[in-house]
């Protein structure tokens, strides 16, 4: 990014077209220094890296070929993960709509929007897996804990985006509806929803996708689904089965992405 060589002498006051940005360079330098320092705390040594590479080669060797023989176990886990994702998305989206509406500061009074925003912030602050740990304590091992954990994270994500989308809408249709004497429900249904529906479909399909990903993971802490199978396979060093599970998960997520694209097209 350095500046081109100094301009020839005759032009006395020619501005450098690309002046060096010293604060930005200092920031880059600082970032590089930090990275070196942080890397040094990781205790990465060359031997460990080489050892790791050898280990990795052995690891990949044991993964191949993927072992699809435990079909029943694999399918049962996958189906439970799908069920968790579908229920959590449906319940989460349903609950997120009123919360998101309540959190929109341009439509709601302060005493309603601040508590709603607080609830959203609380739902968003913990990773789904940590929420799953708490729900496993509250409702025991199994799919229910996973569903509740994903419902919480869906509310946090979708309600926030709905609130932001509503805060950006044009207020003119709302004013017109109010002037014509529409009830609050009428204003929401006819003036707010049409303006945010497009983006809402986008968030909802994204959340379905992300719930699908996370539902394969809550099992690691006892929340049901294929995560439990995956974690057990890891602990038993069944790496060929691990690879089979990973391939199956990637396949399901890829199919989910296609489905999400189809849904978005349908509601365009």
């Amino acid at each position: 990014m350095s500046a081109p060589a100094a301009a020839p002498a005759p032009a006395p006051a020619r501005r450098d077209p690309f002046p060096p940005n010293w604060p930005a360079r200092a920031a880059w330098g600082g970032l590089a220094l930090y990275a070196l320092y942080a890397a040094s705390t990781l205790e990465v040594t060359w031997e460990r890296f080489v050892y790791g590479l050898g280990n990795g080669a052995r690891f990949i060797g044991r993964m191949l070929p993927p072992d699809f023989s435990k079909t029943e176990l694999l399918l049962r886990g996958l189906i439970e993960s799908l069920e968790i994702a579908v229920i959590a998305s449906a319940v989460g989206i349903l609950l997120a709509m009123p919360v998101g509406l309540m959190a929109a500061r341009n439509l709601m009074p302060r005493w309603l929007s601040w508590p709603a925003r607080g609830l959203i912030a609380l739902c968003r602050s913990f990773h789904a897996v940590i929420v799953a740990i708490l729900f496993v304590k509250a409702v025991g091992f199994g799919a229910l804990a996973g569903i509740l954990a994903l419902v919480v994270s869906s509310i946090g994500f979708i309600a926030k985006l709905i609130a932001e989308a509503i805060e950006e809408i044009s207020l003119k249709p709302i004013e017109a509806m109010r002037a014509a004497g529409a009830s609050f429900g009428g204003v929401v249904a006819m003036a707010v929803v049409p303006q945010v529906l497009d983006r809402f479909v986008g968030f909802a399909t994204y959340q379905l996708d992300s719930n699908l990903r996370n539902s394969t993971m809550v099992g690691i802490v006892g929340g049901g689904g294929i995560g439990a199978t995956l974690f057990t396979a890891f602990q038993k060093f069944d790496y060929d089965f691990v690879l089979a599970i990973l391939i199956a998960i990637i396949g399901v997520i890829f199919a989910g992405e296609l489905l999400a694209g189809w849904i978005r097209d349908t509601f365009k």
Partner: protein
Amino acid sequence: MIRDQRRWQRFTPMQRARRAAFYLLAAAAIGQSLRAVDVIPEFLQDMPEQVADLFRRMWPLDWGYYGKAVHEALIETFHIATLGTILAIGLALPVGMLAASNLVPWRPLNLLAKLILVSSRSVNSLVWALLFVAVFGPGALAGTLAIAFRSIGFVGKLFGEALESTARGPIEALHAVGAPPASVFLKGYWPQVQPAFWSIALFRWDINIRESAVLGLVGAGGIGMALDTALTLLYWDQAAVVLLTILAVVAAAEIAVTAIRSRIL
């Protein structure tokens, strides 16, 4: 007099059929899931009591645990998230560039880059962490690599899309005056994607702070290790301290991101 038989309809029959198909599919999926899922309703009724018990066990908080184990783990979490993000950006920039069809006008290479990005995103960070723990052993190195590999897909995808939506004008001008490829990128593309780049990097760092807090559950270092220890020993008063610490860090990260974003964007 012939009455006009035409009626105005918002959607074409095809659109309506697709919507009906979607509603049917959604209802069937939800119904089937509700019927088949293995949930014991009695557990749900028991929930208030269990939650009350949880809070009773958490109180009073064991603040001594913070100095003993949490603080160090917290610093490690910060390093994992930040270093992982930096590493991810370093790896994702070239892949994102390869994925941008206006920068690399060769379709097979675009598709290869997109495949790399999709596989990075499909594997969850916890699963990446499991893989790297198996390869490098437990510790922060596995966590950093897990965060980095999970973030490549995210950063690369968004960066590639930002590159694809740049304006042609400045780039053609640079080509016309005979600028070498590196200069075309630095002076033509980079200024146009810079705001998007910073916003992506900050957003991902924010996410990574949250994600690196759970990596310890599978042995990949950071504050999750402290949480895991407390949970296995059923010391809920210590687990509560860890949870409050995570809450504080996440809030601090969000405030920091908002502040930096308003300054540099």
